[in-house]
């Protein structure tokens, strides 16, 4: 059985300056409760790996606003003017990666792969500094693994063993990040007994989950 914990306690164990993956796409499928705690406990100097920086006041956008992030690796920051502002003011460094590449890099980190070859971004600004390989006459970029100290994950359901099920488009980066974080914190809307999520419906096996936190949503 896993032990559940409070958001406050969970976040207190995270050091400043951690490299952190956070699930979600424009805030959908993001563990808001854990993010609120990061802000409340003022955990700074973070390196953030996430799809986008959402909007001010939403999802990881709250971490940006609170100036807790020093470096972000993401595919899109256009919807959060505060990210742009901090980037231009050089308060925050931003590494932009194509979305399909970003998720494969995280997958490599979690799946024990040394890298992956993608045709995406060949010949673009996003290829700068990356190794290029020719395979059967076609050019590919070699993209390297991304790992993190911490993964913050949002799930719909979590059973007593930590088995997770996500909901609709709130899935996005969550299951892949659950593989790539050294310590995995899951915020779940509903906690259910073992057996309530059938084996074929488990999206992330509980063996990957370290801490379970109940979200503020009633269920």
């Amino acid at each position: 059985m896993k032990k559940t914990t409070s958001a406050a306690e969970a976040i207190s164990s995270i050091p400043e300056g951690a490299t952190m993956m956070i699930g979600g796409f424009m805030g959908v499928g993001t563990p808001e409760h854990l993010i609120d705690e990061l802000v409340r406990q003022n955990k700074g100097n973070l390196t953030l790996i996430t799809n986008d920086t959402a909007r001010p006041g939403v999802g990881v956008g709250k971490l940006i606003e609170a100036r807790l992030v020093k470096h972000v690796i993401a595919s899109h920051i256009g919807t959060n003017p505060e990210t742009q502002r901090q980037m231009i003011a050089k308060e925050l460094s931003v590494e932009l990666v194509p979305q399909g590449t970003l998720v494969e890099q995280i997958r490599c980190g979690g799946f024990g792969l040394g890298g992956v070859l993608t045709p995406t971004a060949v010949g673009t600004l996003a290829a700068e500094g990356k190794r290029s390989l020719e395979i059967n006459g076609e050019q590919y970029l070699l993209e390297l693994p991304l790992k993190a100290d911490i993964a913050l994950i949002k799930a719909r359901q979590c059973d007593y063993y930590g088995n997770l099920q996500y909901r609709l488009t709130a899935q996005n980066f969550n299951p892949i990040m659950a593989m790539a974080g050294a310590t995995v914190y899951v915020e779940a809307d509903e906690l259910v007994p073992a057996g309530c999520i059938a084996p074929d419906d488990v999206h992330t096996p509980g063996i990957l989950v370290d801490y379970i936190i109940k979200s503020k949503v009633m269920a």
Partner: protein
Amino acid sequence: MNDKELIARRVAREIQPGSLVNLGIGLPTMVAQYVPAEANVFFQSENGIIGIGGLPDGMENPSLSDAGGGMIGALPGAAAFDSAFSFGLIRGGHLDMTVLGGLQVDSQGRLANWIIPGERVPGMGGAMDLVTRARKVIVAMIHTAKGQVKIVDKLNLPITSGRRVDLIVTELAVIKPCEEGLILKEVAPGVEVAEVRAATEAELIITEPVTTMELE
């Protein structure tokens, strides 16, 4: 009919029954409403769903959104998946078509739509994967930006992909990029070829009689 509706209606005619289509945020999203339900087209959103459908009033679900974060509905038979699978569909050539907006397209049909260095750096999101590997790429955009040409001889913005897009649809014209350059195929109702040329920096080639866009 305003310019955006005209573009959306024309793009809708390119969509094959039963195909899998990704629509970008903004103007491209409008295309869906002009595709008849009986065409059984599957709309994908790269954040993780096939089967986007109408959203009945009051039935919003915070876990069901499109790539812009807007609330959407889904059809019976929809399928949800993670981002790795979603981009596997895109990169793996399983996506029949993507419709995207554009900042510039050049005479080789290459698209720039993700960054204006020093001014606006939104990021590429899924655009580079989509343009590189969707089977068909349609750029749907207003022909010029506040008087500035967008269909240019040479891009001065960074490219999204080295791949040549398949079709450009604007409120003035339908243009097909190919090996030889940009071929002017159609003009909008009431628009003259000279008008299109005046609003376009890149050379427009005419190989067959230019027809008038059909919109219904």
